[in-house]
């Protein structure tokens, strides 16, 4: 018989682990050589990597940066590395990089997209790093430095150079005092960017932005009497009316009174990453709010709202993006009143936005569905109305859950911008590469343009991916 009574009279302190539980040896044994099968896999892996490096390395090492044409490249490779050796011909990038970046945008005006690109980060910063004074200052400082150098290289007129540096300096000062107010710059940035890219009268972006003022004004004037939903609808209706019928006459009238503006650049001169980033960033910006509204609409108790949202989402998701792009380039012309010249890039942006919004709606709906019923009930029980409950309780949590999937959609959207090649726009991958390869000097070049374009896409998409991981870490408060 064992004695059932036992009392510990001394508690044991923790002790250091044995050697086999720590250090490099443990890591190697656990990760690479645990068992004979894993050891074989490790060895096979090493062989494959070695083979890849050995076959690709000479091509990279024999790269040629200075040449007039592909045949010259090959001569140089043959002369330096011997007959039959392969080598990359980056000389093509050196000569044609600007087409990959700007398309046929007039060289003397390159400073405008460059400036828009730099300021894009200043506009995104307060959204991406809300309230973090140090990060905001760092980003704005980098933007200032970037503009100082690149605007100089792009030969910007003195006025534009100084204006952008003063602007960035002012924003840095603003961040030190009131970081939240930086969002005002974010709000006006779309108009500024549009004006920088396409040029034209200075009144065009101002009058277009006034449409939003009309929308907000109508909402604020009516919300007391009609409630948020009805006044928001009326506001949107008035704004659309403004853009469709009042915008152009007012702009023309103002421009005839007070001139001033930038040289106009037509949409068919856009190309390369300028085009991809313009479409991508605009579509990302606008698809998120539309996607949120669609997701909420799909969960609504109101039958008509719900049916419309479901119908829209399922229709858009059921149709290939290319079909929508063809619609943008051909069919929309038939539906619009005759004589309206609706810019092709704008049309493409609208359809890419709607396409992404439908996907986002489903992603966000997943996030909404993942929230326990109790969150809605607690918000209701505290007396929060529908919109406040959504904004303060439901969406912050649902969006947080959906961050990885939302960013995936954004990355997909950004890469899908290359599909605009099918409606005759000059995307960096197919459009520009085709033009370069059609040149007699560079005929037959194959890997280099795709690697170059792929690398830039990778940098941008990887950036988005890292940001999403940072955001997930930052917002992690559930301590599960």
């Amino acid at each position, binding site marked *: 018989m064992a004695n059932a009574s036992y009392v510990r009279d001394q508690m044991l302190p923790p002790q250091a682990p044995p050697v086999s539980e720590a250090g490099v040896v443990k890591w190697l044994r656990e990760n690479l050589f645990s068992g004979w099968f894993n050891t074989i896999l490790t060895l096979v892996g090493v062989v494959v990597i070695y083979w890849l490096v050995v076959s690709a390395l000479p091509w990279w090492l024999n790269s040629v940066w200075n040449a007039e044409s592909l045949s010259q490249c090959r001569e140089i490779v043959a002369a330096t590395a011997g007959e039959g050796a392969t080598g990359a011909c980056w000389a093509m990038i050196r000569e044609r990089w600007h087409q990959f970046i700007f398309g046929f945008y007039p060289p003397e005006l390159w400073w405008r997209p460059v400036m828009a690109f730099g300021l894009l980060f200043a506009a995104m910063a307060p959204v991406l790093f809300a309230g973090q004074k140090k990060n905001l200052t760092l980003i704005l400082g980098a933007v200032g430095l970037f503009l100082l150098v690149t605007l100089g290289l792009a030969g910007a007129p003195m006025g534009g150079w100084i204006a952008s540096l003063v602007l960035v300096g002012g924003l840095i000062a603003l961040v030190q005092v009131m970081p939240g107010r930086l969002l005002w710059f974010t709000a006006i940035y779309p108009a500024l960017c549009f004006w920088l890219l396409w040029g034209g009268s200075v009144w065009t972006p101002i009058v277009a932005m006034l449409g939003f003022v009309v929308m907000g004004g109508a909402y604020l004037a009516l919300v007391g009497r009609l409630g948020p939903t009805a006044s928001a609808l009326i506001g949107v209706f008035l704004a659309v009316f403004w853009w469709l019928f009042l915008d152009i006459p007012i702009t023309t009238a103002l421009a005839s009174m007070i001139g001033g503006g930038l040289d106009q650049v037509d949409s068919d001169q856009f190309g390369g990453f300028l085009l991809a980033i313009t479409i991508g960033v605009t579509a990302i910006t606008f698809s998120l709010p539309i996607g949120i509204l669609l997701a909420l609409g799909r969960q609504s108790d109101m039958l008509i709202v719900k049916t419309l949202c479901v119908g829209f989402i399922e229709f858009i998701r059921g149709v290939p993006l290319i079909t929508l792009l063809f619609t943008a380039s051909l069919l929309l012309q038939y539906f619009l009143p005759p004589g309206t010249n609706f810019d092709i890039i704008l049309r493409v942006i609208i359809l890419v936005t709607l396409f992404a919004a439908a996907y986002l709606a489903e992603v966000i709906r997943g996030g909404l569905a993942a929230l326990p019923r109790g969150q809605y009930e*607690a918000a209701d*029980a505290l007396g929060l109305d529908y919109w406040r409950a959504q904004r303060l309780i439901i969406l912050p949590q649902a969006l947080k859950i959906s961050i990885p999937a939302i960013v995936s959609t954004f990355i997909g959207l950004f890469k899908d911008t290359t599909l605009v090649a099918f409606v005759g726009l000059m995307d960096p991958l197919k459009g520009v590469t085709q033009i370069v390869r059609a040149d007699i000097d560079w005929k037959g070049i194959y890997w280099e343009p795709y690697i170059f374009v792929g690398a830039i896409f990778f940098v941008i998409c990887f950036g988005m991916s890292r940001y999403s991981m940072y955001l997930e870490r930052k917002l992690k*408060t559930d301590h*599960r």
Partner: protein
Amino acid sequence: MSEHAIDRSKMKVSDEVAIQISAMNKWYGTFHVLRDINMTVQRGERIVICGPSGSGKSTLIRCINRLEEHQQGQIVVDGTELTNDLKNIDKVRSEVGMVFQHFNLFPHLTILENCTLAPIWVRKVPKKEAEETAMHFLRKVKIPEQANKYPGQLSGGQQQRVAIARSLCMRPRIMLFDEPTSALDPEMIKEVLDTMIELAEEGMTMLCVTHEMGFAQAVANRVIFMDQGQIVEQNEPKEFFNNPKSERTKLFLSQILGH
């Protein structure tokens, strides 16, 4: 139960009617969950509702702040009838606090933000004032030091006390408790019950769905027993526990007090 003697002196019941439910019926689809409920709650009353699971007790108190919709009859809370009118619903909800079985704190907000959110957005209280009120009630439930943590960092008992403080920050006139201790470990039940007893001592009108019969005996001035969607028996706690009239009540009490 609580170590200190419970002070029943302030637990006065006034003649004023806080909640009036008459001939109320509710269905889930074809299932008749609440059948002909008639009930009057006076201001300052502490009512414990008990009964077997599925008897409709949670549904009943969830009808009082319209988390559930009733199909027939009338519910009047503080003089406001609950109908489809959203304004009335929001008005009732801001007067009636609710504590849930699973706490339902907002995990993305700190404890302090959980407590100030509704006062700031519904009552339009300035942020500073709302924070002072929140700290007052957090001190009352004895966790002011946790104010800047997130709900996930707190124990179950602490979370439930925060949930009570969050409700109190809206200065409700009626508090509903939906099995507030059922999801807690035994050692944490007491701290939540103590908080509720303190609240009762201050004269709060309380409706509490619970199986804590000790709490019912100590605090309640009426115990309601429900079965199959109906009020089967109600009485003062002493009478209810010592001398139950209905067979169903006797069976239920023997099952939960039997061991």
